[in-house]
């Protein structure tokens, strides 16, 4: 598979006014293959937006390179910029005083679409697909938040770039608008073969949309795997023990690190099974504690649980060593493990 985005040894250090240095992105290596929906996950300040902006040529890296379909953003800027369209978070991205049609024509021209006929045809198609055609002559400032976001996405796509970068594309949208944007993201990748990179805090959305996810914390990559594999990996480690009736607290204490909950009159203990505790030992402990065990099943983790787990591990590692790099070693499966 061809690499749409290739990031090598990418770092960005910002210097604050007080002279302190903040490493927003640290030696990042990442490849996003063509036609994928790629999710960039991380807490605020994890380095996702900075990475995206370096890919857009808006922020100059301290070290490293970003290549878009083989074009170096730093050295072949013009060709690299023809490969991407981006909607950045926290800003309007388009002129709210202009209408949707005018915005698309304006941005189409500055993005190098020289044929007026082609530009108008694309603008019409995009506006129709996004249900904006009827209101194309209204100023964007009068649209709902969801419609404004659609215009920003359409403007990013007007030059028909093969790579689309969406920074928090559904932030602040209502359920319906968010769903429309999500459906469109899938359509862009599956039907038009575009590579879509999105950052989001909505982990359920990432789980549904992304072929592959990268989880970042403090500028470093904690995990980078196909979404399904990442879920499988954690599925093996988490188990649920279903026990008949209520279980006394002292008995539940036989399973340190497990959380207890009540479901339909049963007690469910959920927790991680690792090197120091096997499934068989779990069953044995339940028998010794005289618990009425109904079932032992691998828990179905969602991306949110994995995200929280990985972030906690990273925080722990920083707490122990003062450095995420020293604390979190790289597992062979592409997930940074405890130090």
């Amino acid at each position, binding site marked *: 598979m061809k690499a749409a985005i290739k990031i090598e040894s990418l770092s960005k250090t910002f210097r604050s006014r007080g002279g302190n240095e903040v490493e927003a992105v640290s030696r990042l290596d990442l490849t996003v293959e063509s036609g994928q929906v790629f999710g960039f996950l991380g807490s605020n300040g994890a380095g996702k937006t900075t990475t995206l902006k370096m890919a857009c*040529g*808006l922020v100059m890296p301290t070290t490293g390179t970003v290549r878009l379909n083989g074009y170096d953003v730093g050295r072949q800027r013009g060709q690299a910029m023809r490969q991407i369209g981006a909607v950045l978070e926290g*800003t*309007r991205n388009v002129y709210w*005083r202009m209408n949707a049609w005018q915005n698309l024509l304006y941005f189409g*021209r500055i993005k*190098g679409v020289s044929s007026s006929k082609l530009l108008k045809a694309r603008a019409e198609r995009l506006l129709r697909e996004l249900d904006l055609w009827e209101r194309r002559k209204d100023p964007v400032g009068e649209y709902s938040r969801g419609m404004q976001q659609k215009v920003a996405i359409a403007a990013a796509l007007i030059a028909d770039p093969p790579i689309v970068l969406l920074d928090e594309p559904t932030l602040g949208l209502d359920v319906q608008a968010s769903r429309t944007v999500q459906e469109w993201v899938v359509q862009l990748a599956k039907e038009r073969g575009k590579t879509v990179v999105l950052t989001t805090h909505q982990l359920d959305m990432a789980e549904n949309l992304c072929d592959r996810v990268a989880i970042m914390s403090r500028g470093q990559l904690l995990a980078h795997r196909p979404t399904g594999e990442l879920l499988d990996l954690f599925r093996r480690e988490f188990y649920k023990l279903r026990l008949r009736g209520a279980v006394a607290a002292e008995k539940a204490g036989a399973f340190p690190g497990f959380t207890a909950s009540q479901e339909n009159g049963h007690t469910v203990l959920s927790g991680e099974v690792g090197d120091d505790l096997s499934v068989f030992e779990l069953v044995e402990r339940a028998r010794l504690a005289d618990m009425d065990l109904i079932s032992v099943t691998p828990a179905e983790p969602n991306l949110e649980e994995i995200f929280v787990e990985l972030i906690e591990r990273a925080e722990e590692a920083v707490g122990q060593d003062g450095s995420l790099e020293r604390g979190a070693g790289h597992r062979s499966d592409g997930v940074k493990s405890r130090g």
Partner: protein
Amino acid sequence: MVLTGTVLLNECQKRLILLWSYRFNFMLETFMIGFLFVGISFFVSGGRPEPEQMAPALLGYLTWFFAVFAISDMSHGIREETQTGTLEQMYMSPLPSGLLLAGRSVASIFISSGMVILIGGILMLLLGIRIPVRPAGVPVFALTLAGLYGFAFFLGGATLVFKQVNALSNLLTNMLLFLNGSFLTVERMPGWMEAFARSLPSTQGIDVLRRVVLDDMSLASVWQDGSLVWLTVHTGVFLFAGWGVFLWGERVARKRGLLGQY
């Protein structure tokens, strides 16, 4: 060439659309600018303004209006676009940012020319002022504008890095009005002030423009007396220094991630 034309038309079209969307403000501003000229002229002439005396003042005042537009575009305009994220979108263009910026500047000159013709025409009509149209004035005017835009690029570069340059740009706009020789003759200023006034963009341009347009001097004669030479050097310095500062600002903004931050 086609690309440059497309960029230029694109920017002109955008500016006209945005101007139209603010048409009420625009009309009030036009009225205010006209009224300000009348007010200052009455004040400076002791309440008895003569059309012959007002012609040089109006020529300087209209040139100053170009400065207002250029400075506003490069400082307020860039700051606003930083906030709305449209500046980042511009920098994601495959076209060179210099070309886009030049397109913006030329569009700004076209739009402000339209406004100047409107305001100037109304004032000339109402006050009986006559400013002749002389071809020799065109290159002088072009040089004056180039110097003004160099100055505006300087502010644009500073805006990209420091953001809060509102107070500075307002101060400079007002300083240009009172020190560019429109209402107060530069020769009558104290020595230090005259030197400072002459170092500002547009002062020398207005001076040469008056001689060529109002006094009907030829380009050769203003070249020979050194005033056009000084204007050319002055403009060159402002244009190149301003462009250099803008490129510096752009580089720093990219380095610090300031293109979309306010």
